[in-house]
């Protein structure tokens, strides 16, 4: 594991998709007037005959993707998360999920990572995609995972929703980290102790920082990285939960229907009576603003995880204060 502030890279998804598409002629790339923003300018500039800009017409784009996939192609559809989920939900259900075809829907700017306000903030995309039969939902944490996830979702038969941060992507895991479609992973602690934090995507950095602070304050803590939210690796989560006093989920998403809900369902069905706290957006639409401002204001910070740990364990001492990382331009740290 690397340490914050994390170094970042640009366009790990775009580079990985180009590399894979050069090997696999069946891959087609569709976009909706957000080519550079979805890192697919690299694809367009190198394999232009397999890149199509559909324009601002997401419903049509999903329908075209469905037709291409039925004819044998693997189709990567790229736009912002809000536009490729809530805007064209019936099209995804009927043209992609129900026929169970090889369409990989790639949604950028998850949760409150967009400064653009509710129109651009995908806060319920995971819930929507989780609800569809046949749909797999992936929310990778860093550049190491993203590079591997592109091949993994292409290899996976059937539709996938891949949720990606836009812009500078941190390198959190070591180079030998392995992304797996079927397994969640213990990435900090030993899976036994006071607190088990289950996180995905942009909340992994905060979960790791919170676990470190908890350990520094005498509270043993583990972190499980669950990049595949559906189907959730319930076995790994339940196993750690059984050996912990408190489970905290952390997601850059509404707490209704996403990772927190998936973990709650898994624990309840396994009959694990461990206390559960969900860190996430609490049933509100947010506003415009920086990542730092929005994550603090809407409960997605390291401090929020620490507060839930203290409350969940009923500790009477003052809540420890999350470390503040000075970040140079191009570096990344959790809020």
């Amino acid at each position: 594991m690397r340490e914050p502030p994390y170094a970042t890279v640009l366009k790990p998804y775009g580079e990985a998709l180009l590399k894979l598409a050069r090997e696999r002629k069946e891959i087609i790339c569709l976009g909706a007037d957000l080519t550079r923003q979805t890192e697919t300018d690299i694809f367009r500039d190198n394999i232009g005959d397999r890149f199509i800009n559909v324009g601002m017409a997401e419903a049509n784009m999903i329908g075209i993707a469905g037709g291409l996939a039925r004819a044998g192609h693997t189709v990567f559809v790229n736009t912002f998360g809000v536009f490729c989920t809530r805007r064209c939900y019936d099209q995804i259900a009927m043209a992609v999920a129900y026929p169970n075809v090889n369409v990989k829907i790639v949604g950028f700017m998850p949760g409150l990572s967009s400064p653009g306000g509710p129109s651009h903030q995908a806060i319920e995309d995971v819930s929507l995609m989780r609800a569809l039969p046949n749909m797999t939902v992936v929310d990778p944490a860093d550049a190491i995972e993203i590079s591997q996830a592109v091949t993994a979702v292409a290899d996976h038969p059937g539709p996938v929703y891949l949720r990606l941060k836009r812009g500078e992507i941190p390198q959190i895991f070591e180079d030998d980290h392995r992304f797996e479609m079927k397994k969640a992973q213990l990435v900090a602690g030993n899976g036994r102790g006071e607190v088990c934090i289950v996180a995905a995507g942009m909340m992994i950095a905060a979960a790791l920082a919170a676990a470190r602070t908890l350990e520094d304050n005498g509270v043993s803590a583990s972190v499980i990285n669950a990049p595949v939210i559906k189907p959730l690796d319930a076995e790994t989560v339940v196993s750690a939960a059984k050996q912990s006093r408190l489970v905290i989920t952390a997601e850059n998403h509404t707490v209704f229907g996403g990772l927190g809900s998936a973990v709650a369902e898994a624990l309840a069905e396994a009959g694990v009576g461990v206390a559960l706290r969900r860190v996430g957006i609490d049933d509100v639409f947010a506003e415009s603003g920086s990542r730092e401002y929005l994550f603090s204001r809407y409960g997605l910070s390291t401090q929020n995880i620490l507060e839930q740990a203290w409350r969940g364990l009923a500790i009477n001492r003052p809540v420890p204060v999350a470390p503040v990382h000075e970040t140079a331009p191009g570096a990344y740290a959790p809020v």
Partner: protein
Amino acid sequence: MAERPNEDLRKLAARIRLNATRMVAIQGFGYLGQALSSAEIFAALFGGGFVRPDRDRFILSPGHYVVCLYAVAAETGRLDRAELTSYGMDGALLEAIGTERTPLVDLVCGSLGQGLSGAIGFAIAAHQAQEDRVTYAFLSDGEMEEGQVWEAAMFASHHRHRMGRLVVVIDANNSQVDGSVTSVTTIEPLAEKWKSFGWRVADLDGHDLVALTKALATTSADNQPLVIIARTEILGRMKSIPATVDGHFIKLDPALERAVTAELEAALA
């Protein structure tokens, strides 16, 4: 004197109507009007040598028209006639609205307005693979109210050189659930709309087999997509059905079934 239609196609259209009448009679109600209005369209497409089985793509956008597909397939030898007798029944192969289980079709939609987008996907794939496949998409006029149809129409013209040949046939029967299309909203002028979206347009009598087959045979040197606006009547100009019947979802009691069947059998005599 007007050109007479091919007698085989005229009889095929009558058999489509007859098959559909018998299928809808199983439940006593259903999508008979759609078959009555589009019988000549399906006869021309599948009996006139246009949709080549196992080569060309056929996309049925309005899934409730699937009764027409079954009716014609039983006549062209692509469907066991015995299957027609369980149409719409629990567990049957032939469902009343198309699904992923539906045979004989590359794509069938139930949620309206989505078929043309899927057809475009097939047409792009044909071009990518350099395959000689024509993509036919059947649409209805009511679904022109869905915005996605126009997103797709705009795309198809702009990207025509990245697609194989694309042909759309619209059954313009002026019928939707709440009544006539003209009473619900104004979709006209359809021909001018499609033309302005960059399509070749044939605006014709959808019960005229000569006009239909002539239009289907036309091609474009520039691969401009073709739309045939087939003007039809929801009751298919059947004399035996009172004009007051709701054509979108016909209640077919035994007396009406007998009258319709008698008229169609006379046409086949």
